């Protein structure tokens, strides 16, 4: 019974991770560096929506217990994240001439600046969107699943965004250029693709999705200046699992890491070889894998390192898709 609940939670959490990991992967392949400010870009989006929602309030109407105002706030949050990311790229990353490691280190500085400014404006404490707390959906409770309509909204919106990106990549000229550039930037440039513009689009898409992920993370948990940074390593784990540079790999990796993360409590429910201890000295009687939920992130990091060792190109391989 509990399994269904964990799976449902995993689906919701996965949606958030997927939104974050697509952008990280895109920027990794097109701007060619590991962007440590990506998590804090999510935070920027979340607080952008927070301010907007506070200002316009819950306009009546809306779906899944989310007022229309919230969806407007979501859009504004995405736009804020995009504007901030594009401005950062123009004034900080673009003039740099330090190679991908230098860019990585610079992006840590950028992450700190984002977080510091948010903390100055909103304090270090947790806040939440001014929405009523929902009860779990009634008809799912008999199945042991306790999710709210908000959770459903997160999954549906994330699915819409991912499908939209898929259509963009596969069926538009721009998408083809992006895939070409992720594949081989030099070849793309000599083929006449305006790589600057493609890079800009990558930033827009990546930061926009990150902003949406941040807004949903705030809806799923709470808002805090560290929220995005805390998620960053998990998103890296997802991107590496899926294979850096592959958008579809990022989706798959995000889904798997989100699921594994929420399924961690199952480990302590399993009781392997209950009598084991009576035969072997120094082993407690019930050798369950007593790894609690507090190690959920640690498991993701260990998976990340294991994937890097065994298959550095990730499960989706290299060079397929954008």
């Amino acid at each position, binding site marked *: 019974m509990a399994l269904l609940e964990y799976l449902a939670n995993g689906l919701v959490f996965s949606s958030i991770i997927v939104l974050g990991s697509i952008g990280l992967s895109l920027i990794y392949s097109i701007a060619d560096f590991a962007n440590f400010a990506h998590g804090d870009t999510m935070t920027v989006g979340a607080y952008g929506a927070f301010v907007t929602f506070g200002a316009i309030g819950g306009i009546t109407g809306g779906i899944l217990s989310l007022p229309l105002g919230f969806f407007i706030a979501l859009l504004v949050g995405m736009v804020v994240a995009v504007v901030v990311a594009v401005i950062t790229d123009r004034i900080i990353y673009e003039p740099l001439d330090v190679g991908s*490691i230098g860019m990585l280190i610079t992006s840590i*500085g*950028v*992450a*700190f600046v984002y977080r510091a400014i948010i903390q100055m404006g909103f304090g270090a404490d947790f806040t939440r969107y001014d929405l009523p707390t929902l009860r779990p959906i009634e008809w799912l409770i008999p199945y042991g699943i306790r999710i709210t309509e908000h959770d459903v909204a997160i999954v549906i919106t994330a699915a819409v965004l991912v499908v939209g990106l898929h259509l963009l990549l596969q069926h538009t000229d721009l998408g083809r250029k992006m895939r070409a550039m992720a594949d081989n930037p030099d070849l793309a440039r000599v083929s006449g693709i305006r790589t600057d513009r493609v890079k800009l689009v990558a930033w827009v898409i990546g930061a926009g999705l990150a902003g949406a992920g941040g807004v949903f993370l705030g809806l799923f948990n709470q808002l805090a200046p560290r929220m995005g940074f805390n998620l960053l*390593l998990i998103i890296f784990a997802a991107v590496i699992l899926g294979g850096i540079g592959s958008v579809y790999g990022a989706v798959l990796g995000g889904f798997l890491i989100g699921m594994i993360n929420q399924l961690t409590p199952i480990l302590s429910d399993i009781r392997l070889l209950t009598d084991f201890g009576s035969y072997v000295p120094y082993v407690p009687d019930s050798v369950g894998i007593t790894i609690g939920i507090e190690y959920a992130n640690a498991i993701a990091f260990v998976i990340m390192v294991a994937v890097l060792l065994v298959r550095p190109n990730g499960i989706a391989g290299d060079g397929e898709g954008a």
Partner: protein
Amino acid sequence: MSLRSAPGEFWGNLTKPEQGVTVLIGAFAFLLFIGLVTGWLGPTYFLYVVGLAGMYALLSFGLNSQWGFTGLINFSVAAFFGVGAYGAALMSGNTSPIAGDYLPVFGLVVALILAAVLAVLIGVPTLRLRADYLAIASLGLAEVVRLVVLNEREWTNGSAGVRGIPSFFEGWPLLATFPSAMPGLEILIIPGSPIVLDSSFWRALLNVALVLALAGGSYAVLKRAHRSPWGRVLRTIRSDEDLARALGKNTYSFKMQSFVLGSLIMALAGVFYAHLNLYVSPGDLDPITTFYVWVAVILGGSGSNRGALFGGIIVVAIREGTRFLNEIMIPVGISPVRYVPLPFDVAPLRLLLIGVIIILVMRFRPQGVLPPQRELIWPSSIDDAAPERPDSGVRDVKAGEDNE
């Protein structure tokens, strides 16, 4: 500029950035001296800050021997620092859940062993990885270490941390009783604000002596290592790993040696911290410590030990300097003047400063303020004597400006 015409070959041998840093440090030291004399800065607190600066210098030395020598992007500094601190604390602290009340020297040995084991454990899977993957993977494994320290209560006391850590010189002949044996002194330079030197001052003095010994020892070892054939291999790996391999060097083994060496020095800093602070908690393993140390090394100049020292001092100046902002009151109103604290929290200001420094250094001076000077074609080295004339060789190119 008038200073530049000052006589003395030493001064003439410095590059412009070196001269600038010397002037800056001189001015800063003068300011601290004024603060001490006027009683505005307590001598015990001053020594605490000096100890902290020494600790950051030690951490920077450690990272420098990994990143500056070998080019390893180690983002798990906080883990080694924390393991050093916890090794010392768990052995000597009286609230330690496993051992406790052992001599601090014993704690030092345990901490070093723990750090070496952890270095091998983290190094084995990560050191084969590409540079940026190494950064991400080591940061992830450092988080795993932090989670273990936070959650394994029966081993580490969990979030409560370990208290009751004695001073490092506990149990030593003479030095153990030195602070209480020294007389309390009162020095009166400016009437009305005497400088009090009590036993806590002498204790702090011992701490400073300890960190100076640790940092001095590490510096000597690293300097020797840097010049040795071993160090040359490391620098070859940094600039071209394939070349090193083609020369028949087992680069993985050399990287591991460099990684363990640096990690041991970081653990030394952790041991010192445990005996300076007398309390350790899982918060000490927060990734922010890693980034502080990175700022110190990048700012100082990768590969340069004096740069690491300079960076360490700047980081402590930011960390401790921003504390004073909490006490600054700004006057508001005119006839009934009220004093209010600054309208924002200081913690984010510290973060902002660190972030801005990283960005500015990478943008305008990616080689750092004090890059290595005695290396002709980086990273090969001419070591021994300083070049005879200041305006020769690669230094002008590095400094980006000529001397006249």
